């Protein structure tokens, strides 16, 4: 009971329960959190049973990594050089996408403030499986220079599963490219199944996320 009260307190005005007059004059009740959002629990997406098909698809997935254009911390300044002639990630099949729906890889570029973590979770859950997370910089591993900050998280893997860590403060774009190569190896070997891991341990991740995000005003899983 306490949790629902808490939830309603932080809801935006447009998401609160209210009465609306329909065009024909009748009064109807709407509850946007129930009516507008899907509350189904996500399912584990199994790989293909036939091994050679899955291997071929994994090769295609590894050669066409679309990263979400979302910079979270100071490390996001290391991503733009990747599209310049000097580093040029396009030759490895790595491309930027502006929307989470079309992306496969999420670069958490540096420290994550609590406010950003909420947006990161929303974006991550909107990406389609299989999806991969690259954690850039030491801030995502142990908090780095922000380890005692009041407003940043210290360990990223308590909130979402991470495929590849790229250590450094900040790692150079070459390190990021090396991270992509490592991710490719993992995908080709069929070991990059962290999206399913997230679904399997959803309750644990959600508990951790809700412990940090006090003003939780979104659906439990953002479809």
């Amino acid at each position, binding site marked *: 009971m306490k949790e629902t009260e808490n939830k309603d307190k932080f809801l935006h005005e447009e998401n609160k329960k209210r009465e609306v007059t329909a065009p024909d004059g009748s009064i109807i009740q709407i509850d946007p959190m129930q009516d507008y959002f899907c509350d189904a629990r996500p399912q584990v997406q199994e790989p293909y049973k036939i091994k050679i098909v899955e291997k071929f*698809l994994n090769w295609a997935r590894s*050669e066409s990594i679309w990263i979400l254009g979302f910079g979270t911390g100071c490390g996001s300044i290391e991503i733009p050089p990747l599209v310049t002639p000097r580093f040029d990630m396009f030759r490895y*099949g790595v491309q930027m996408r*502006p*929307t989470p*729906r079309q992306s496969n890889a999420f670069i958490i570029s540096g420290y994550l403030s609590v406010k950003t973590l909420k947006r990161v979770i929303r974006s991550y859950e909107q990406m389609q*499986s299989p999806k991969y997370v690259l954690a850039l910089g030491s801030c995502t591993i142990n908090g780095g220079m922000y380890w005692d900050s009041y407003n940043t998280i210290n360990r990223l893997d308590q909130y979402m599963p991470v495929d590849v860590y790229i250590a450094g403060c900040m790692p150079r774009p070459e390190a990021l490219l090396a991270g992509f190569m490592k991710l490719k190896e993992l995908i080709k070997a069929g070991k990059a199944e962290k999206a399913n891991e997230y679904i399997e341990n959803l309750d644990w991740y959600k508990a951790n996320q809700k412990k940090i995000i006090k003003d939780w005003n979104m659906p439990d899983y953002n479809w």
Partner: protein
Amino acid sequence: MEFTVSKILWTLLGLFIVLNWGLIMGGTMRKIVARVGKRYGIPIYQPYIDLIKNYSIRSQITHGVMFYLGPVFRLSGGVGIFLFLPLIIGSNHWSNFSFSGDLVLILYFQFFGMLGMALGAGEGGHPYSVIGVSRGLSQFTTMEIPLTLAVISMAVQYHTLSIADIVAAQQGGIMHWTMVTNPFATAAAMLSLLGALGHSPFNLVKAPNEIPIGPPTEYHSTFLGVLRTNAAILHVVEAALFMNLFFGGAENWGIFILKTFLIYFWSVFVGVVFPRFRIEQSIRWFVKIPLVLGIIAIIVIL
């Protein structure tokens, strides 16, 4: 026009060739754009891998029936143009299902895919989709006017609305091409082609770093795969349509590939030179230069 099994098989083979040529041409163009920016760029087979990747995404979410039908409408728009477009002159196998009024039908099909996509993207519910749709429809409507004027000018010139007849009338050397006999109509149509193919000065519909990718914002996995398949087909058939109307058609597949490549390259060439227009600039530009050229084409031919 005859519907025999062999005719349908030849048409499907033509669709297969056009799809593959579209993917390779798209990759080549992106490579060229990368070289202009002194980048190494993608491998030219990257569009194939992207397509396989998109079709192999494991999960899909939907927003409703129209969301499903949007890419289907878009694909039928592209394939519809292909079906009524003669590819190779005088060839029985590669003339598809062209008939005497096919030019009007093709102009209609150009808009059909747009409208289907607009309905689908609207049901996606993303605000950026709606902005992209409103921009796309207004730009496309403005772009259609000079194109239609050019087509009317040609219909008056050749006394026909059949693409096969227009191509046949242009045979016998470069001096018989519409490009030479009706330069104003060609200029108006080639400028409106820039808007149809959506490269740089007129790419504000999908402007990736302004409104995240516009109408297809919510489209992913198989939906996006269908849209990409359609884009590959559509780019080739648009170029083939202009090749047939203005540049004398193609006698064989070699000339087909060369001419469609050059016509598509025209929009890429303009794209790497000029930066993006805002929507009001783009519409004003279409109403000023191509529209005036189209009106001149009509006046000259009458």
